[in-house]
């Protein structure tokens, strides 16, 4: 589904990704761990299409298409979803209206008519319950005045509404208490199918107790330096990142 080959990218003069290679297939959950500043969030932003980054080498294909040539919104319509580390507050636009515009943008891309109001409301109701989001939040401005946990639950709600093929979760666990973490993880687990895939970017192993990854990658200095199964995450938690640095010879 997602193939990244030898990806190099920079922001301004600073090179952040230095030859990253990764393959994600349908039905898989991948976790990317690593110390701060190694390029994890940059990777998420580049896949999602944030424009500040300049790709200097390598390629990223999604279902065989070169997504580096697509705008962020085209990628989303193709089925890429980024759950933001810091979801943006937008006063004046309700989550309901936002989701109506997003769902219809995707439907239009698929050659479908705009969703019927009744079906849309039913869908909203169903999906918000996945993350125990109260109905009242949907008529409020996007993320405005939401707590950290509510914002993250809103991200997973949006994920559920848009039913993406590839979901990238950028440090979704940061700032979550244990209850919110459980709600978010349960939501994600219910969305998992054999046809979609997840890329979970996290600093800690904690979230991976709830969402069990098929692969764990350790990122360091702009590359993936180690790949293993879920046990690698436990090892990271236990031993920290220093041994990786030594092993890489940094």
């Amino acid at each position, binding site marked *: 589904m997602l193939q990244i080959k030898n990806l190099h990218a920079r922001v301004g003069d600073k090179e952040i990704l230095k030859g990253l290679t990764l393959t994600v297939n349908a039905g898989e959950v991948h976790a990317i761990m690593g110390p701060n500043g190694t390029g994890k969030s940059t990777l998420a932003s580049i896949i999602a299409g944030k424009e500040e980054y300049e790709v200097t080498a390598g390629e990223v294909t999604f279902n065989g298409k070169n997504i580096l040539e697509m705008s962020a919104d085209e990628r989303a319509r193709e089925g890429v979803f980024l759950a933001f580390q810091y979801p*943006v507050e937008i006063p004046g636009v309700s989550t309901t*209206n936002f989701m109506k*515009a997003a769902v219809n943008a995707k439907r239009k891309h698929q050659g479908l008519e705009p969703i019927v109001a009744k079906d849309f409301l039913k869908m909203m109701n169903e999906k918000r319950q996945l993350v125990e989001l109260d109905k009242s939040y949907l008529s409020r401005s996007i993320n405005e005045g939401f707590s950290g946990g509510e914002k993250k639950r809103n991200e997973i709600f949006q994920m559920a509404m848009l039913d993406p093929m590839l979901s990238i979760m950028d440090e979704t666990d940061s700032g979550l208490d244990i209850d919110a973490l459980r709600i978010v993880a349960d939501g994600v687990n219910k969305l998992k199918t054999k046809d979609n895939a997840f890329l979970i970017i996290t600093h800690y192993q904690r979230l991976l107790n709830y969402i069990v990854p098929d692969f764990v990658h350790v990122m360091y200095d702009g590359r993936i330096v180690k790949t293993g199964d879920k046990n690698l995450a436990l090892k990271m938690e236990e031993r920290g990142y220093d041994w990786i640095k030594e092993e890489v010879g940094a």
Partner: protein
Amino acid sequence: MAFTDNIESAFETIGKDNLSEVRKTALENFKTLGIPSARHEEWKYTNIKTKLKENLKLVASAESQVAGKAKINVFKAIEGTKLVFINGYFSPAQSTITPQSGVVSGSLKELRSQYTEVFAKYFNKATDSTTENFAALNTAFAQDGAFIYIQKNIKATQPIFIINVYDAASSDVFTQTRNLIVAEDGAEVNIVEDFQNTGGEKTYNHVAEIFIGKNAEVNYTYLQIENKQTTSINSIEAKLEKDARYHISTLTFEGQTVRNNVNAYMEGENAIATLNGLYLGKETAHIDSHILVDHRVPHCDSHQVYKGVLDDESTGVFNGKIFVRKDAQKTNAFQSSKAILLSEDASVNSKPQLEIFADDVKCSHGAAIGQINKNELFYLRARGIDEATARGILTYAYGSSIIDAITLPELKDYLYTKLKERLNIAF
């Protein structure tokens, strides 16, 4: 200008009535004042001389302005009195007046001889024909417009709509229309004034005088929504007495050249004025909001929020003057002016002006000019919404707060829909 050359002969064609004396004085004033050039401080950013067409004429004959057959919006979905003016003249056939005791509304041309005392007391008392060029011209030539008179302690139960429609028949006429609105002590009224251009190019000069008595309330919504080829000068001048409440919202979604003078004179203690505006320019539109709040007495509050959105090569002007006179202690005056520029060729001139002569006042103002927030834009696009729509949604979010503050619920719904249409978004 061509129309100023034969101004005397045009003036001759107006019949005599109880306003003839005021008119004559105004004509003399206008002859002295003339059309302001860009050297005039108040017209520095709007060179009106170059915006008025050469072939404009001042016509004072109603008969030449036969109503067109164009489809007009009479706000059918909203209950209320509808006063329809076609090319500047009252159209009884298209108007519907809901009768209510103590509420007078209709054509100024028809009612001025019936309410002579009211006209003697108020007409031309809010504008200053000795200094305001276009107010003088208007006073000299305006024949018709809306007259709304709410008598003491009467609350108008339904809103009153003033619907001004211009069609191709009036495109070479520099139309002068005049409203007189009087809310006596304790009276309350909601007024919606709308301008629609169904023909080609149109130029008009409109003056609305509003008098708000003690403890009276006037809510005024001024709409310039379908006016693509319109060049207009609008002066909305309100005088507030003790404990009066005034809320005006000006919404400009279209227009070639639009000048809005919105003046509020605080003449009685504890009066409250709220002046809001939302203006959207595209292509080569030029929209100039000239706001004046004159605090003449102590203990009054004024609150201004203006928001602009300028796209393509459009230009905007915000000139907001707050005057606090020496006696106007304990004044509370707030002003916020914001504009977002959607294109590199769009521009705005923002000039807040505070002139404070009292020493115990609370005044604040803020001006900001910016672009659409990049993080917000990316957030919407990351959900599959294309860039143009995402910009539309964010512009809607920014502008709709001005509509939020309008009191009539059905009108708000109409305006939200119109704003979405204007920004090409649907949800």
